[in-house]
């Protein structure tokens, strides 16, 4: 069905989108400019630009360490999740069994239940086992929503590689393991990569769980940002914005990479 030029509906749609996008961009640019401004208390643009806040942030935080922890957690979470989620996704895609629906629901619960609801008991347990306040604890906590997410993303990719292909390989003489290695994995690799990169993006921005579990040296950059913003009195807002820009660049870099693999709508869809 074709659109007919100019209609009231179209006008409202674009106005709405412009209002929304405008505000989002406004937020981002304010942060960007503020982080490099001096004496910007009123007016549309700052009077002076300076890089001193970045220097300040670099001296107050160990930025390389923060970035290192952030990526370490993200990559570790993704790697472990793939190992757990892939076989599960395979079994769920290929097999039908009693209680499958119930099991699937249980797997998906950690994605539906918001982190703050289960995060506190989870933190308590991790503290009990002395895993909290360490990178290990952060990794374990972040696994909880990511594994179900991965299962959900990978399932359609596995379903796409029809069972027939595996059967065909078996008819040609391949053993189970070889079928896996030479047929299934290569064909589902795009799915695995997609799930992986989406999970990296998600983990970098996940706040609540890491916040509840991390200690001083095992913070990710988003947690450091929150801590700075929270203690706003003790830190100049421009410095907080500087850290925000660093976080923003990190997250956006991963987003841009992710978008090479997957369309924007799919990104959100994979969240439910």
């Amino acid at each position: 069905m074709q659109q007919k030029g100019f209609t009231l509906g179209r006008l409202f749609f674009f106005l709405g989108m412009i209002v929304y996008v405008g505000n989002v961009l406004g937020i981002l640019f304010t942060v960007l400019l503020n982080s490099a401004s001096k004496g910007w208390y009123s007016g549309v643009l700052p009077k002076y630009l300076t890089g001193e806040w970045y220097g300040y942030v670099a001296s107050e935080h160990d930025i390389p360490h923060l970035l290192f922890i952030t990526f370490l957690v993200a990559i570790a979470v993704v790697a472990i999740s793939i190992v757990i989620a892939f076989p599960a996704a395979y079994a769920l895609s290929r097999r039908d069994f009693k209680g499958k629906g119930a099991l699937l629901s249980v797997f998906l619960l950690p994605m539906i239940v918001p982190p703050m609801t289960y995060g506190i008991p989870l933190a308590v347990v991790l503290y009990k086992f002395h895993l909290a306040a360490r990178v290990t604890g952060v990794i374990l906590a972040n696994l909880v929503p990511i594994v179900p997410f991965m299962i959900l993303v990978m399932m359609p990719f596995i379903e796409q590689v029809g069972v027939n292909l595996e059967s065909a390989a078996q008819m040609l003489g391949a053993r189970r393991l070889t079928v896996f290695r030479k047929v299934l994995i290569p064909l589902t690799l795009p799915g695995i990569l997609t799930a992986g990169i989406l999970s990296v993006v998600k983990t970098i921005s996940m706040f609540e769980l890491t916040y509840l579990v991390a200690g001083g040296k095992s913070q990710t950059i988003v947690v450091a940002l929150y801590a700075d913003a929270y203690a706003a009195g003790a830190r100049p807002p421009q410095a907080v914005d500087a850290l925000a820009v660093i976080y923003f660049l990190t997250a956006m870099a991963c987003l841009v990479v992710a978008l090479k693999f997957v369309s924007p709508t799919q990104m959100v869809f994979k969240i439910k």
Partner: protein
Amino acid sequence: MQKGLKGGGILFLLPAIVFVVLLFVYPFLYGLYLSFTSPEGAPTLSNYARFFTDWWEARTIWVTLKIALPATLINVILAIPFAYHMRHGMRGEKLITFFLIIPLTLGTVLVSEGMLSYMGPNGWLNQLLQAIAIVRGPVRFTHNYWGVLISLVIQGFPFAFLMILGYVSGINPDLEKASQMLGASRAQTFVRVLFPLMVPGIAICFCLNFVMAFSVFPSAVLLGEPSGPTRVIAYAAYQWALEKFDFNIASAISMVMAAIELVVISGVLVWRNRIYRGASMVGKG
């Protein structure tokens, strides 16, 4: 699809089952246990009693609902016309979706933090509003209820929009054509055909959005006033756990959170079933 789990099926599922049990089910059950236990280990209802009888704590339910319900309603209700408009695709769709997922990807912390400057008394938004003479003085968006609500809409709208868009796009376009041929105007087609078919999607979207909004934490703290008007239930749980180190009460609060979310979700699902009797299939014929 193979039936049954023989031949390694169970083995494939085992790591995931172990994981879910150890890191989700067990902590949850442990939290449940803690909530009914005193710090010395004796079974008790005092944790819940403490929460519900202390007005300062119990009111967090009301405070959070006051933020979460309107935010969710706004998100879902706004998303519907926008998704309806885009249901057949449009030029620039990819660009629009890209801009919509930016706040989602960046996360609440950045958006909240950024809003402090952008929507502050001297920020661009206030400057703009005053420049086009909508208001005379700066409007207070930050460190109050409105800031938190706005941030929930900024974060929640794209999610609701994209989700409902997915549902609407999945409705067979021939259904609209058939409706037209049978004499229905656009409005009638929407009310009698499209909306009923969207109800399941809208219901799920509402539930997910509500659950996200109800557990709001960083924006309520950074952008609101956690010491009063926007002291949300998640913040209360956090304070008891990591500031007062009373894990029992903290767990109790978490359980209350979960219970309320469950009640609202059930209510929505009952509503949906009432509207959507009968058909279960929305697919392409």
